[in-house]
């Protein structure tokens, strides 16, 4: 593996590289919704967005304005890109609040104001590595484009899709068309094997040279920890709540370890959403540890 950029850039003590920025800048466009397709508990929207589609890389996301120019919901909703190509972008919307519900009700004939592609994409796999992709709930959608790219680059791909129940699964048919093997787990056993994704991850990790994951924080933590314990690099796409998606609001920060070994509050939007799985201090999310850069100025000192 000597000469592989993902390895060369690795800092001492870390098995992942700092994830580089995307090649291209985002754009803001008002785009037409071409199709709306309910998928289990979610809604897949297809957008006519050639400039975003042409720039997007797997792992990136888009940010939608909700309602019109006088909407009382001001904050953008950031959603992973599930597919990009041929001038269209697809996203999977999980309606859970008024904003995501509004978005999930858009259909052909509607336009939406969208900014993207945003964030840092998944880095490539080490040469010859078998890739393991792990998705939780609608987070699985973010892995479909990655699976296709990895296969095109000649990597064997295994995938695990998990959810609380069968209706919360996502993108399993799309992954099945691309990955060599797809394992499904649900917490209640309503589809696939009963249990958490880690059930399948533990079996497939042995053959994996790199792990990619997208889903809820506890799942990302479990997958990243399992990979790191075996010395396998993992890259996780986090789902932090963001107000802007472009890096100006500073609300979506996580404690992340940099190449210099120091922890900073890093923005999930512009420094993520993809981070090395061994660089996110999952146990310290929502806390201010004393060794975060600048914690001393907040009055937090070493015990």
């Amino acid at each position, binding site marked *: 593996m000597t000469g592989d950029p993902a390895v060369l850039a690795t800092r001492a003590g870390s098995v992942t590289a700092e994830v580089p920025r995307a090649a291209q800048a985002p754009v803001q466009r008002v785009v037409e919704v071409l199709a709306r397709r309910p998928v289990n508990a979610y809604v897949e929207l297809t957008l006519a967005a050639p400039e975003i589609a042409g720039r997007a890389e797997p792992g990136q996301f888009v940010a939608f304005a909700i309602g019109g120019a006088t909407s*009382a919901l*001001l904050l*953008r909703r950031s959603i992973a890109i599930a597919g990009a190509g041929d001038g269209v972008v697809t996203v999977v919307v999980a309606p859970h609040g008024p904003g995501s519900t509004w978005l999930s009700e858009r259909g052909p004939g509607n336009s939406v104001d969208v900014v993207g592609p945003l964030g840092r994409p998944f880095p490539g796999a080490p040469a010859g590595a078998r890739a393991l992709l792990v998705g939780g709930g609608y987070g699985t959608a973010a892995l479909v484009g990655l699976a296709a790219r990895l296969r095109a680059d000649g990597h064997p791909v295994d995938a695990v899709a998990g959810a609380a129940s069968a209706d919360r699964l996502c993108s399993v048919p799309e992954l099945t068309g691309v990955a060599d093997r797809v394992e499904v787990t649900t917490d209640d056993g309503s589809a696939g094997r009963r249990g958490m994704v880690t059930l399948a991850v533990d079996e497939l990790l042995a053959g994996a040279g790199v792990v990619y994951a997208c889903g809820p924080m506890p799942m990302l933590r479990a997958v990243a920890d399992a990979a790191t314990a075996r010395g396998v690099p993992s890259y996780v796409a986090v789902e932090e709540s963001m107000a*802007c998606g472009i890096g100006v609001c500073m609300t979506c920060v996580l404690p992340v370890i940099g190449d210099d070994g120091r922890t900073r509050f890093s923005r999930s939007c512009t420094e993520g959403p993809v981070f090395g799985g061994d660089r996110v201090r999952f146990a310290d999310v929502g806390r201010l540890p004393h060794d975060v*850069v600048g914690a001393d100025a907040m009055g937090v000192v070493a015990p």
Partner: protein
Amino acid sequence: MTAVETAVDMRTALGGVEIPDPVLTASGCSAFGRELEPFVDLTAIGAVVTKSVQLRPRSGRPTPRMAETPSGMLNSIGLQGPGIDGLLADDLPWLAERGARAFVSIAGTRVEHFAELAERLRGVPGVLGLEVNISCPNVESRGEVFACDPVAASDVIAAVRAAADPGQPVYAKLSPDVTDIVSVARACADAGADGLSMINTLLGLVIDPDTMRPVLGGVTGGLSGPAIRPVALRCVWQVHAALPHVPILGMGGIRSGLDALQFVLAGASAVSVGTAVFNDPSAPARISAELATALADRGFATLTEAVGYAHRDVA
């Protein structure tokens, strides 16, 4: 009212320094400008008002830092930032290289912190002036916010004015969370402020009905967005009425050109666009264009003619 064909002269000034456009970003809502580059011509807007900088790098508060509220949001970032060294090494040179004007927001917890920051910013290329964020706890007054006490506020402004580059106007950013904003405004003007920025956020709280705990890690947070616009406009109105010769940079929920027009009519000679940027990253440029159209539609040939126009006597 008939539409005017000719373009409106949008030039205005911050203190004595002329700027080509009256629309600026707002401190804390556009970081240090870099992230807006894909969406806004940073050289065309009045200035980039930077996120408040302090002497040392700050991590900011733990998450959650944000809650959406009706027509607004509550934030508790805790002034995360690189500190003055980082600002001078990276962010200000980046803006200066592009020819963007920086209006640097400074913050501190002691009077001498503010003065030291002003001193460090003397003569720095691209720095148009200073906005003094006095909505910070004063460690020498048991954490009372400078902006809530006319004496403490004027102490900071006097120290900054004395330390700052004479060519850089000093604006005091006022808090609306006071009984009498005019008295604080007057104290700041008397202490040498070249202008007043108003308003900062209002202190607010959101409780999660599921966890039955405050949503924000910092418990309380600053309320911003169109929800606070009438409060901001009232503050600008009152201060302009009392101190008509003190320039005002107006802000608080500006989302459209007509919103900006209201601030100008109330007495602001320039405006900052803050939370609207989260909704629409191209908002500063859009609002400037909308304001120019709105002024033209009302027969104004220049922006300055419209400043304070709502205060005129009507028969």
